[in-house]
């Protein structure tokens, strides 16, 4: 097959996307496909229209590639593509929207409040902040609504930290959420097709527990796959993850991030197009399930080509 690999783009996760893309191209070549590597830039649509690939493998992360934009263009061009469709991408990239959908579907997700910049600048939303302490408590987590990596995510230990954390989060998006901090084990469940892959546990080194950046580095974070969970815990985690995947309309593959608290799992977010680099969680989980990287890529292509009910 002729496969176009879309990578790069202008998002802050450009670097990760280039690494994901290179690895996917490599696997596709080994699988005997004709690979067309495409930078997501002003020429992308022209190249796609001229080359008419059988399918596009979207190896883009963050706004532009993971939010439905590239997916929409491919639909217009009539080219099949890997991973979730336009609507699922749009729901996943927006954490606020995703949390509303999750809650409506009865999937546990930590309590939150969302604000956009206009609310603070023009509507005096700062006055509403005082009411949050009772509802969310401290510490709380401040996040940009859109944005895939750790950038812009801050902990607020008390009121002193809140305005500053908001200014940081608003650097990435004009909508931010304040979320109740849930203490527990950090887990990621990747879903392939409609099948959950083994659960990965992310364990930051001592002292790094509030440092999100540490979680993305070899050596500073350890990953346990499959995570050591009791049968009941495992069932509850997988149920929540699959529930989230379906509630947001994902297809092909995605990754669900959760916290396993004392009273059960809470879904934090769903990554529509999770990283596919050497250190990414989805390939690790696939491997633990006995699916090597090339087979994973082939399976993702098959899922994209097969007509589905969604």
């Amino acid at each position, binding site marked *: 097959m002729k496969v176009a690999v879309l990578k790069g783009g202008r998002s802050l996760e450009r670097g990760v996307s280039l690494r994901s893309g290179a690895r996917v191209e490599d696997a596709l070549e080994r699988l005997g496909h004709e690979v067309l590597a495409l930078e997501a830039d002003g020429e992308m649509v022209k190249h796609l229209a001229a080359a008419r690939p059988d399918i596009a493998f979207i190896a883009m992360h963050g706004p532009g590639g993971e939010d439905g934009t590239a997916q929409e263009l491919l639909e217009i061009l009539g080219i099949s593509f890997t991973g979730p469709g336009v609507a699922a991408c749009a729901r996943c990239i927006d954490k606020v929207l995703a949390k509303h959908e999750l809650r409506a579907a009865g999937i546990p997700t930590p309590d939150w409040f969302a604000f956009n910049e206009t609310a603070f600048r023009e509507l005096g939303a*700062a006055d509403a902040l005082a009411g949050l302490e009772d509802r969310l408590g401290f510490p709380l987590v401040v996040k940009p609504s859109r944005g895939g990596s750790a950038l812009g995510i801050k902990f607020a230990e008390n009121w002193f930290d809140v305005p500053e954390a908001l*200014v940081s989060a608003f650097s990435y998006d004009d909508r931010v959420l304040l979320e109740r901090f849930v203490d527990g084990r950090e887990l990621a469940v990747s879903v392939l097709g409609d099948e959950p892959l083994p659960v990965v546990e992310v364990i930051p080194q001592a002292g790094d527990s509030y440092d999100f*950046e540490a979680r993305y580095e070899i050596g500073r974070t350890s990953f346990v796959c499959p995570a050591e969970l009791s049968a009941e815990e495992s069932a509850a985690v997988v149920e929540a993850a699959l529930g989230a995947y379906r509630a947001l309309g994902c297809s092909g593959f995605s990754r669900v991030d959760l916290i396993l608290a004392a009273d059960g799992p809470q879904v934090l977010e769903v990554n529509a197009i999770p990283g596919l680099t050497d250190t990414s969680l989805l390939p690790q989980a696939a491997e633990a399930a006995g699916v090597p990287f090339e087979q994973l890529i082939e399976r993702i292509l098959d899922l994209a080509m097969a007509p589905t009910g969604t």
Partner: protein
Amino acid sequence: MSEPPHRRRAHASSSDLERYAGLFAERTRVMRSSAMRDLMAVTARPEVISLAGGLPDTSTFPPQTFAAQMTRIAQESAAEALQYGPTEGFSETVDCIVEVMGAEGMLPDPDDVIVTTGGQQAIDLLCKALVDPGDVVICEAPTYPGAIPVFCSYQAETIQIECDGEGMRIAELEDTLERLDVEGRRPKFIYSVPTFQNPAGVTMSLARRRRLVEIARSRELLVVEDNPYGLLRFGGEPLPPLYQLDGGDFVIYVGTFSKILSPGIRLGWAVAPPPVMEKVVLGKQAADLCSSTLTQYFVREYFAEGRWREYIESLTELYRDRRDAMIEALRRYFPPQASWTEPEGGLFIWATLPPYIDTSDLLAKALRDDVAFVPGQAAYVDGRGRNSMRLNFSGSGEDGLREGIRRIGRVVEEQVELYSALTNSATSSAPAQAKESDMDSPGLPRPGVAESERDGGDVLPFRKAEGA
């Protein structure tokens, strides 16, 4: 053009990674955060006005001169120029180095000089010769961002001493040395960029230079003086380098051709007392045998022409205008809560914003407007500097500088407005109001009052914005 045949390396599976991870040396744990790396990767987009680099403007070097020199080398010394050279460097290169140092009043013994692959290698080789894991290295706060990974990779414990308008606060240094004495520890060396410091742009005063050299001599401590910018002075009187004041007993000197000729030739040097030099030479042998023979020939030809000082003068004029343009733009486009240094030479201005602005996050926002800078955190080992930024004025033309500063100023303004919307609200919580009072002292964490009185002057940065 067809691509040469190549093999694509099989990518590592996670079990391979696990295996590699088990092999990594302890020192690899101190790598910079990947989030920051990804952020900096985005600054490389061609449409971005980058005030982030530390690039000299090589476009001013005459191509005819370059061509003539390389032609002469090819015609007259092809075999030698393509051959290995001595580890210490050619004596002709050392002669050029002695000439450059002479221009700043220094008289090194040519035998004390080693040619290195940029000043960066000199720092690396000195650490290699001097630093064991856990040893203390002292440097300025903020310090050259490129020195931090070197100190970290040798697993030094880096202690940073606050700077003000007169450079490193020597009283604070003395307090630190006393404290280390009590703990029974002795720093391996004190690293300083005393002239037009990277990143802060400040220059150490003569009095402080004298005190630093006295401390080094009386305590028998080594000072590493890194001086890439000394000849790029736009105004004020030149000050004697530490090396000159000390005579080369306790001050080790690091120099480079990068900022006065070309960084592409990768040539720098170190000057150290013979016992230290001996170890540095051994270290260099292990590292790369010798620095580029070809570019050492180029330097020799270039200096033989005798116009190197003229070229530096032309660079100095160019950079002076660019500094002026950047300062003018800062005054015009940065809000009154911002402050910055006004260097008399070098390549950098250090700007500081109110304490509630994290410049790493600000960079993400600025990148959407296609402009980049170095977040201040990169100049500290301990997470300080979050509300500061390094701005380079040598690598862009005046129009680019003005536009870049205008765009950064706009995003800063937005952050300031947002913060005040968040905190000035009538019924917003009292603690948020308390935080705002910190705005009276923007910048680096305040040192003790006693310290401030002893050294005089404000800790970096100064308030320069109009109406501030």
